[in-house]
């Protein structure tokens, strides 16, 4: 699940081309070219949707968050100065949007253990070659993450679902390196605790 990273991370030519295209797209859109915005939307919609899904939990809210994110991108494209990569800027907007929607949501059972809500592929049928245990594992991961606090959930999603580097996470979350590392460590520890608890209960039931 790799997404376009800034060309400074890898000296990949295709990545550099992608970043040039990013800069071109946003510049063209700032000047008024709406087709550039369409291309930007199609390019980033999957990544943004997956971040929202990981943080928010259910697909409907994830769709709403995605649309809100792109609405903000549409409105504030002129304020993008190029200080960070376009991808980290968009992810930052997405994360803030998701955390805001989490705060607004009532604190009632967020983690719905129903299989329908927690499905990873809501619209498309899962490909047949996906191993059942892997699906179960992924399901379980999703369930455990639902039980974590928003900060920890966000850190885990960005690190393990989007595979961002520390620098990118610093830019997206607005924390410094030490805070990012500590939060990641504590998120892992919380996840591990919950996972161990689950294994115990599952072991007990089985």
């Amino acid at each position, binding site marked *: 699940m790799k997404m376009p990273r800034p060309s400074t991370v890898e000296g990949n030519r295709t990545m550099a081309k992608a970043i040039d295209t990013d800069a071109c797209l946003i510049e063209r859109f700032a000047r008024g070219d709406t087709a550039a915005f369409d291309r930007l939307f199609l390019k980033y919609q999957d990544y943004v949707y997956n971040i929202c899904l990981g943080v928010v939990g259910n697909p409907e809210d994830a769709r709403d968050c995605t649309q809100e994110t792109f609405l903000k991108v549409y409105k504030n494209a002129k304020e993008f100065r190029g200080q960070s990569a376009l991808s980290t800027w968009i992810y930052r907007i997405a994360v803030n949007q998701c955390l805001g929607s989490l705060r607004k949501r009532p604190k009632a059972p967020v983690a719905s253990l129903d299989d329908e809500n927690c499905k*990873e592929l*809501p619209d498309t049928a899962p490909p047949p070659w996906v191993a059942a245990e892997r699906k179960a594992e992924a399901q379980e991961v999703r369930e455990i993450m639902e039980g974590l606090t928003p900060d920890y959930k966000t850190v885990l999603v960005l*690190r393990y679902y989007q595979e961002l580097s520390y620098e990118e996470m610093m830019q997206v979350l607005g924390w410094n390196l030490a805070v990012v590392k500590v939060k990641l460590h504590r998120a892992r*520890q919380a996840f591990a605790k919950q*996972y161990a608890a689950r294994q115990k209960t599952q072991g007990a039931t089985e």
Partner: protein
Amino acid sequence: MNCQKAGDLLSAYIDGELTGRHCEALEAHVGHCAGCREELETLRSTIALLAAPKTMARPEGLLEEFKAKYLPEAETAAAPRWGIWLPVMPRFEWPSLGRVMLPMGGLAAAAALLVALHSQPLVVAHPQGAPAPAARTLAALPAASTEASSAAALAAPRAARAEGETARVENGARLRTAPTGEKSRTGFGEPRALAALNVPHRRSRHRAMAFAAAVHPHHPRHQRPDTYQLVVRPRLAPPVDPDVLKQAELQHENAVPSPEVQWQDQVVMIRRTATAAPTDEGYGEASCKDLVTGKTEKSIAIGGSPSPAVPAGAPAGDSGGGK
């Protein structure tokens, strides 16, 4: 290392960021602490679980939904239904001081004209203070539609401000140079004195410095031109007439020396002999040798009547031999 610190370092150790003595200490601790070992293993499996490859969810129809639902709402929300559109005023740039100084002469004229029209007392001006009371009266007067007054009203605050600045600068420069006396002869405008003044704009500061330099007593403008350079030209001798020159030469050649000059020309040598023994009559004898002829003459008596026969060959100056 205790278990709490080890627990904090576990994540870094798994990521491979722990180096040196921290790494060794952690490994040593994990070696003998079962609880930390278990925690390490749990963390490793958690990370493996999280880092497992995942399939990405691909939503559909987002762009169409965006264009259909979200964008029109945003645009209707952005445009105000009730609003007052203020016309944007263009930026007004005050005219520069140089251009303002020119109509300052006209400012007094405009002020005088307005005063004549409205018959209000105008504060009589100290030349430096002329713009300020003029500005005040202009402000007090009802808004006149004449171009001159509007231009003057616009120029007056700037001019007044500039005048105030320069007056301050002048005072500062004078106060600075007066007490120090001899010491202040290093330069014209003292930069330190001017830096202490808070003149905001670069242009005004430059003008203030130029003004300060101009009023400085050492400025060339203030040097009195009382020392004139003396030009010495060699004077040519007047042209001499050749006849006059020849006559002067003849006169020079035929000139007869005066007796004094004649007597001095003669080389007379007096050879002193032993003191003559006194004779019975009480007078001594002296001899004299004439260098020209080589003869020695003796004088018989000194102080007596001169001998009637004067030895020949002696020039007339022989009489002086009896000294």
